[in-house]
């Protein structure tokens, strides 16, 4: 378990402020934020590599605020894997046991176990420079896990990989985590990566925590305009609530009125995710939110097509490719945008 209490850290230009966070034992937590948000500094602070200006760090119930990094039982894996270039893969992996003066038979046993787990036996005698990106990462993870740390810190572990190995390593990370049940803190700037791995997502911006919650909550109920933008909610309209009946609020923005099944009457933004929009040629019936407009741009995103519809305000609508191909839409086509009141999130 990781407990951070009112953490303040200043490192060069980065500043972490007022970070309060509890990560339960065995949980896979992803810290999500843009470049320069202080994500790496946060990990390094937990590992004991920076002096705190203020606050406490409690790991598994023990206050380690003043403890040296080597005594915390926390392993860190950096984005570029930081393998020791002068040591072979084997020497890299057993480094943590060597410095602890572990006996040879135990080292051999642990090496056998971990290299089996990551299937890296054939690499043991090679030097890091000769490994591929995916192999380096496996070695870095093996090195981090052989000492059986209580906590694993991953700093953008997938960013340096190409799309294919990224998918493979993503599932391997999940598997390893589930197998060893190790408390994991994973830092990334990639929203999709966070969604696919996290039990809990911590959104961080400019050194402060912006929102904490399970992926679905971050996805559907961003707590601020920043979180909504960062999770690519796309349709973020500023305006205000002008009415409220038993079932829904009425949110006014530019020329349109949006019905939302939310009771946040103080809201300044209405957020509707682009996946939640329906795009039809005819006016749909029985849907309270439906607006006519014309197609402005069509962007092919592979699996999905992003259609921008001009109807003051402008809506962005993400259609599954198959559905798009069955419709006949071109730039300028008159269409209707519609969505359920339950798809509208007010903040």
């Amino acid at each position, binding site marked *: 378990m990781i407990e951070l209490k009112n953490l303040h850290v200043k490192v060069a230009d980065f500043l972490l402020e007022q970070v309060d966070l509890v990560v339960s034992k065995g949980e896979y937590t992803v810290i999500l934020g843009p470049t320069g948000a202080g994500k790496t500094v946060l990990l*390094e602070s937990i590992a004991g590599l920076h002096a705190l200006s203020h606050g406490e760090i409690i790991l598994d119930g023990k206050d380690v605020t003043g403890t040296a*990094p080597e005594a915390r039982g926390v392993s860190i894996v950096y984005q570029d894997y*930081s393998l*020791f270039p*002068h040591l072979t893969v084997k020497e890299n992996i057993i480094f*943590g046991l060597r410095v602890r003066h572990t006996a040879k038979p135990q080292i051999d046993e642990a090496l056998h176990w971990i290299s089996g787990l990551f299937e890296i036996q054939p690499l043991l005698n090679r030097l890091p420079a000769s490994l591929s990106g995916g192999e380096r990462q496996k070695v870095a993870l093996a090195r*981090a896990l052989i000492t059986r740390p209580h906590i694993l810190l991953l700093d953008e572990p997938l960013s340096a990989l190409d799309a294919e190995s990224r998918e493979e390593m993503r599932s391997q990370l999940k598997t390893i985590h589930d197998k060893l049940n190790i408390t994991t803190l994973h830092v990334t700037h990639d929203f999709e990566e966070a969604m696919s791995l996290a039990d809990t997502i911590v959104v961080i911006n400019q050194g402060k925590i912006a929102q904490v919650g399970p992926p679905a909550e971050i996805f559907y109920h961003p707590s601020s305009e920043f979180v909504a933008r960062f999770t690519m909610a796309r349709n973020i309209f500023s305006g205000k609530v002008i009415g409220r009946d038993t079932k829904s609020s009425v949110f006014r923005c530019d020329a349109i009125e949006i019905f939302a099944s939310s009771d946040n009457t103080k809201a300044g933004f209405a957020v509707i995710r682009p996946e939640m929009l329906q795009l039809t040629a005819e006016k749909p019936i029985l849907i309270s939110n439906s607006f006519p407009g014309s197609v402005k741009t069509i962007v092919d995103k592979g699996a999905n097509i992003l259609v921008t519809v001009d109807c003051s305000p402008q809506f962005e609508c993400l259609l599954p490719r198959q559905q798009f191909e069955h419709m006949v839409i071109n730039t300028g086509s008159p269409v209707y945008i519609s969505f359920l009141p339950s798809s509208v999130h007010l903040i």
Partner: protein
Amino acid sequence: MAVISKIIHSVCSWLGRHRLLAVFSILSLLIVLFIFIPLAKLILFSDKSELWQALLDPSVMQSILLTLYAALITAAIGFLLGVPLAYLLARNNFPLKGVVEGLIDLPIVVPHTAAGIALLFVFGRNFLLGKWFNAIGISFVDSLAGIVIAMLFVSVPFLINSAKDGFRKIDVRLENVARTLGASPWQVFYRVTFPLAWRSILAGTLMMWARGISEFGAVVILTYYPMVTSTLIYERFATYGLTQSVPVAAILVIICAFIFIGFRFVLQRDRKHD
């Protein structure tokens, strides 16, 4: 004739298209030749039998051995004291760091005779440290110890700077990872940092050794006798003239060039390693 005019034509057209390269190459060639010709002539065109004779001269031999030995001791002391300083400068920020870094480079630009005077002013028999050391029987004037401190003063910046660059090139995250894996600061230093900076440190040590061997200005002030080879060259030149000093100079240049080739070799392999 046709062939020659063709060659001239192609050279001219190359010059036309690559005027910048052509002009720069000519200017560069001047400075390269300016450095190359004197050294080459000293080594290649001095009489081989005279070289041999000079080597057999016991006073020459003695001074060469003394010089190599003193410079080796100097390099060892520099290694012991300079590497830690280089590490601190590469890894830590502290008040006056800029001043310390500037101070380290000063011996390179300070006139070496003035450096010798400054050292004598502190280590001389009648001054400050000199007095204390004299009391325990160590004299820095006209002695091996004097040669060593003079060499140390002028050559240690080369080691410190080379080692500092070596330490700087190492990603701090390697050290961070080693710490989290359970290594104490000492273990990190001798298992990760030092091995990775080793080539730069070795190159710096060799450079320092060569600089020590070649020092004249500072040494001659502190210690005329026993005579290091630089001083011997100067004395022979002043006493007997050019021809007598050429063989000794050639020998010393060859020794320094050899050490220096080792240094380049280490650096070269270092680059490949990156």
